């Protein structure tokens, strides 16, 4: 029986996290695996922490990732990535966009955005891939492509067969954004072996 793969996706409301989870789920289904996923966004439509958990394998019970933790962390924002890395299993891989989105607790309540967040992340996860996915998405012409860049890097780690990914994009992404997202996915895929250590 194949082991279950656990992917934790974290970020800020509005960043396309739910769609990323859907794409992973469909890709796993296309690979003939059982899938479970769970997502919770905070009270606000936008701007709060968003967490999505996706699990796939021959048999999956809980939609929430059990101990010892996630195999992969997709962080759409640096602070949220750092928060999420605590739920990575030993030897798990964090793939984190280094974009910083300042939370209200920093602006209004005197909290401090961790200055050394990237170093802390690397300490917690030596295999971490840190990259400015927003810049890459920007080069492609749309900030919303961040999720596909990160998915490309995840795919490069060989979690699912490549044709399943493309089929999942076709099933989940609106047609007018499909080319953009597939291009961004390819960029992530190509980037992964020597991802820029920003």
């Amino acid at each position, binding site marked *: 029986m194949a082991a279950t793969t656990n992917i934790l996706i974290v970020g800020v409301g*509005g960043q396309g996290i739910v769609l990323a989870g859907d794409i992973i789920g469909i890709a796993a289904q296309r690979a003939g695996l059982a*899938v479970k996923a769970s997502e919770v966004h905070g*009270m*606000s439509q936008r701007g709060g*922490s968003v967490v999505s958990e996706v699990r796939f394998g021959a048999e999956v019970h809980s939609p929430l990732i*059990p*101990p010892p933790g996630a195999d992969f962390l997709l962080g759409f924002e640096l602070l949220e990535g750092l928060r999420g890395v*605590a739920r990575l299993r030993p030897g798990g891989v964090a793939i984190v966009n280094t974009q910083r989105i300042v939370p209200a607790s920093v602006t209004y309540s005197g909290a401090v955005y961790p200055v050394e967040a990237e170093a802390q992340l690397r300490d917690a996860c030596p295999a971490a891939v840190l990259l400015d996915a927003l810049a890459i998405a920007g080069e492609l012409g749309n900030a919303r492509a961040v999720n596909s860049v990160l998915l490309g890097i995840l795919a490069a780690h060989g979690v699912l067969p490549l044709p399943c990914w493309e089929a999942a994009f076709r099933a989940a992404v609106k047609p007018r954004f499909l080319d953009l997202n597939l291009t961004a996915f390819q960029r992530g895929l190509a980037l992964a072996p020597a991802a820029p250590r920003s």
Partner: protein
Amino acid sequence: MEEILTGNQAIARAARDAGTALGVGYPGTPSTEILETLVTLDGGVAQWAPNEKVALEVGVGVSFGNRRALVTMKHVGLNVAADPLFTVSYTGVAGGLVVLVADDPGMHSSQNEQDSRHYARAAKVPLLEPADSQEAYDFTRLAFELSEQFDTPVLLRTSTRLSHGKSLVTPGTRAGELPAPAPPNKPAKYVMVPAFARKRHEFVEARMVELEAWANAAPLTRAEYRDRKIGIVTSGIAYQYVRDAAPDASVLKLGMTNPLPLEAIRAFAAEVETLYVVEELDPVLEEQLRAAGLAAIGKAVFPICGELNPAVIAAGLGLPADAPANLELPGRPPALCPGCPHRSVFSVLKKLGVTVSGDIGCYTLGVMPPLSALDTCICMGASIGIASGLIKAGVDPSRVVGVIGDSTFLHSGITGVLDMVYNKIPTTVIILDNGTTAMTGRQEHPGTGRTLDAAEAPRVDLPALLRSLGVTDVATVDPYERDATTAAIKAALAFPGPSVVIAQRPCMLIPHEVRPRVELDADACKACGACLRIGCPAITEHEVTRDGNTRTMPEIDPLLCTGCAICASVCQFAALAPLKGKDKVSGLI
């Protein structure tokens, strides 16, 4: 064909496939998407009711008319619908009647984490608890069958992780021809006067005994024997956590948790060394097991507050569970969206320094810093009654307002206004009318002019409604006009009788005209911080060094700014203004 569906989508699909004549409910996280899905399905019919009580009553009518009905709500909605529930338990049904109640352990988006299973016991109706999307589908179909077979409304209970969790579903075939509509013609069954109700109560008690016997032998009561040192009785989503936390343990998975299949539970208990009960929230199963003389371990080792998960259960069982390292990091609390019209009203209320009795909706976020402009929040519609009560307690009526959203007002605010008029209480109410049920994802309601299926509908005329209730002082303002809003609120507070201010401006998330974004004139800015005090996520502060001086300056995120210009209206130095010319808002919203 197998599909990935949320629990909510699966329930909608099952309701359609079961031939449900109507799905009816009031939006409430995490239940909302059921009716939103049902209405999109071929053959699916669904509508929003003004509140859960009306929804259940309409559903009861459909059932009495010999057709199947699904009624949906969140856990606190069942409080509102409890009155009809307790008596329709007596009458029973004609067409199948399924009441879906979605609990929110962990309070992802709720004001309490009450456990709806108590209602099933108190109202004496069967309760089904699916554990994944496939079961959400199967149990919904089964619930309609049981409803008709045992002449009872059936409660179907989900939780956030079930409703919003996704897993694979193979839907069944659609029901064939269903009985034709027929009006009720059995007064002894459907007219609950004492003489008839006494008989029906006896029926209810007998029905629950029959249901228990059914559940003892039904496939949804499933004993899975593995290692018999530990035996765990569980239900719903907790079953899945148990399977991951203790893969080798024996498990008795209950699909029906009211009435409890005690015979099956006793048989399971006899086969295992140590009996545990794993249930989210209250010890509903545990107390019944103990009452039945079974030494079950439950809340002694598993928490009563908050959500369960595999790690929590492993810890309770004394199995290895890695607790995540506790990094001290700044939180990311939810916030009113950039451009939210409520922000302006709260910034005015904050400035006036009045006591604000709040209500249920996005605007509850007015409590968050820096606005910090909410003093109470209890339940749907409570803002008005609590404001009136504060005044009756002796609080200065010119220093108290109740704030309530348009959907919440139509749900249960009208009676609060009726009360303040009738009892001559000089309460001031602000209706934050953003033209939608925003908190739950922008659903239509009787004030929006549209129904769930997007058809045009009569739109409630709020000022006319308020005047007909007897409110003589009604004003309507655009909250983006901050000075006019301030003046209207001040006038309402000063008015010696009941007053209502309608702050009317559509939710930012409703498609709207593009407004030029606001830009900061750094030379004019005195870094006074006034714009930061409105709590707009598009405005952050950063340090700027100019001419050797370091100042903390505001910065406007051009991706987030929606051009509402509320910040400009609080700036005394004209340092913030909408961009002139062609530069329009881009951004994420």
